[in-house]
């Protein structure tokens, strides 16, 4: 009889198998390689050279290039999370989930394996972006540990968004629709924030939204942990941005509490139609 420890070991083992399967695709699917490496490079360069000089320091007192790198990181990992929903919808469409569902594997493993491997995709994107950033003059001005903390906050937030996208993918079931639908939400979410401009420059209601937008707090957290803030440009006086790490992690926990059970439930029912 399998006891609960065996069940847990099986669930971890199954999720590992699925994670490995997903990661193999990064090198085998050209689109995916471009998505994870080339487009992040392009974003860093684009923002650094096109907007970096045009927008100026926006009263942040920091060189704009340095200011926007954390924003580009945040936007890219959030976009990266859409891949979770895209891939699950694709697996559903191609019948691979039917095959998985007919196997005696742990019911959580497909979604867990997916979201975990998408952390891997975001790690690759972050490394590529950080290297590109360093080349164009971005610098980490804190300790290695703090910088690592910055990357972890970004990854944790993207992981949570992945779980939302998993639910979207399992409900929508068409990869292209998942992409288009989530871009409609993610574009405003990542732009009505402190990612590329100082929140002061936004009109009233948008500023309020940006103040409490978790994309702002994750960006602010990364900026602080990388040491890319400046004393002359303090973040707006709202709790979310004064305590960006805590506020971001609060969102992460809340999202996971809702979407982990929801997505696993959706997975169990997604195939049974």
């Amino acid at each position, binding site marked *: 009889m399998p006891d609960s420890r065996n069940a847990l070991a*099986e669930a971890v*083992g*199954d999720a590992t*198998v699925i994670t490995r*399967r997903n990661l*193999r*695709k990064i090198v*085998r*699917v050209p689109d995916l390689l471009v998505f994870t490496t080339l487009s992040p490079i392009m974003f860093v360069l684009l923002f650094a050279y096109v907007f970096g000089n045009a927008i100026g320091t926006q009263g942040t007192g920091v060189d704009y290039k340095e200011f926007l790198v954390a924003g580009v990181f945040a936007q890219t990992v959030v976009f990266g999370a859409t891949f979770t929903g895209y891939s699950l919808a694709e697996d559903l469409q*191609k*019948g*691979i989930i*039917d*095959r*998985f*569902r*007919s*196997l*005696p*594997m742990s019911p959580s493993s497909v979604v867990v394996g997916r979201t975990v491997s998408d952390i891997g995709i975001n790690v690759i994107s972050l490394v590529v972006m950080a290297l590109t950033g360093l080349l164009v003059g971005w610098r980490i001005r804190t300790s290695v540990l703090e910088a690592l903390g910055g990357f972890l906050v970004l990854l944790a937030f993207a992981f949570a968004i992945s779980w939302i996208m998993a639910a979207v993918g399992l409900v929508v079931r068409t990869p292209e629709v998942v992409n288009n639908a989530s871009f409609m939400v993610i574009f405003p979410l990542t732009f009505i924030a402190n990612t590329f401009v100082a929140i002061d420059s936004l009109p009233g209601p948008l500023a309020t939204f940006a103040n409490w937008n978790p994309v702002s707090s994750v960006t602010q957290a990364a900026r602080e942990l990388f040491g890319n803030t400046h004393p002359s440009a303090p973040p707006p006086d709202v709790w979310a941005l004064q305590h960006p790490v805590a506020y971001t992690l609060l969102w992460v926990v809340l999202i996971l509490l809702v979407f982990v059970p929801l997505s696993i439930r959706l997975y169990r029912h997604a*195939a*049974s*139609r």
Partner: protein
Amino acid sequence: MPTAIRATGLVKTYGEVVALDKLDLEVEEGTVMGLLGPNGAGKTTAVRVLTTLLRPDAGAAEVAGVDVLRSPQELRRRIGVSGQYAAVDEHLTGFENLDMVGRLYHLGAKASRARAHELLAQFDLTEAADRTVKGYSGGMRRRLDLAGALVARPPVLFLDEPTTGLDPRSRLGMWDVIEGLVRGGTTLLLTTQYLEEADRLADRIAVIDHGRVIALGTADQLKAQVGGERVEVVLGDPAQLPTALEHTRGFGLAEASVDERDRRLTVPVDGGSEDLVELLTRLHRGGVAVSEAGLRRPTLDDVFLTLTGHAAEGVPGPASGSTADVSQEGVA
């Protein structure tokens, strides 16, 4: 012989559409049951219910001694499923696909690898083992998918339209493979729209229409149930079909069925060669040019058309329009 698959009163509806309408089914251990029916008859729905992919609205099912609804996870250890569309990962190699399935059956790393190599050899895929499936032909994908269903050596196997969409040569290859499996004592439930396939592979055939079994038996029993023989003529000129029909009126056991595409008239008879001569004489007198003629025993095609024709239209004897359609589907 003990029963390997038993379904009782399975019901599944999608809004207005009744996919399964109190379906009953029993398959003895070590035998092949063919579920035969047109598209939308409920074959795939039945397989999905029996393989835990779908919960029925009502009814019960037991497979390999396990209650499908109560112990789905336990059942999944004992069955193999190969679906209508090859569910293989095209970005993985053939070997990686099978190795992954082995691990998800919890065979362990070493046993999974060994089993994957064994199956690749069995299905003539060893050479392609380390290529990604993207470059495989349709037949190779199907074989790999079937191999995936066999990884854990399941006592009960479900194949949902295993040869749909394959070219004739791949189909013959697939039939050989399936026959080999069955010789090993595996219980097989096979769905198909191809009568020839059911005739060749299945010990017993359940004809399904509108979500229920409308006839059940061996191929010979089903053919006998339809009775008589068939006189078949192929006309030289399709324009003469109406004239030919005119001359067959009142001849044979039931009205002739017409396949316009093949310019073919089929008439059920019970008088053997005399009826053949009689029909040819009538057509000759009527000035109808015949390019081929013959007498044959009923095929499963006839069984299928007679049975589903009744069910679909509620008229005795197949009506020409719909039978032509179904027969095209049956032999396509």
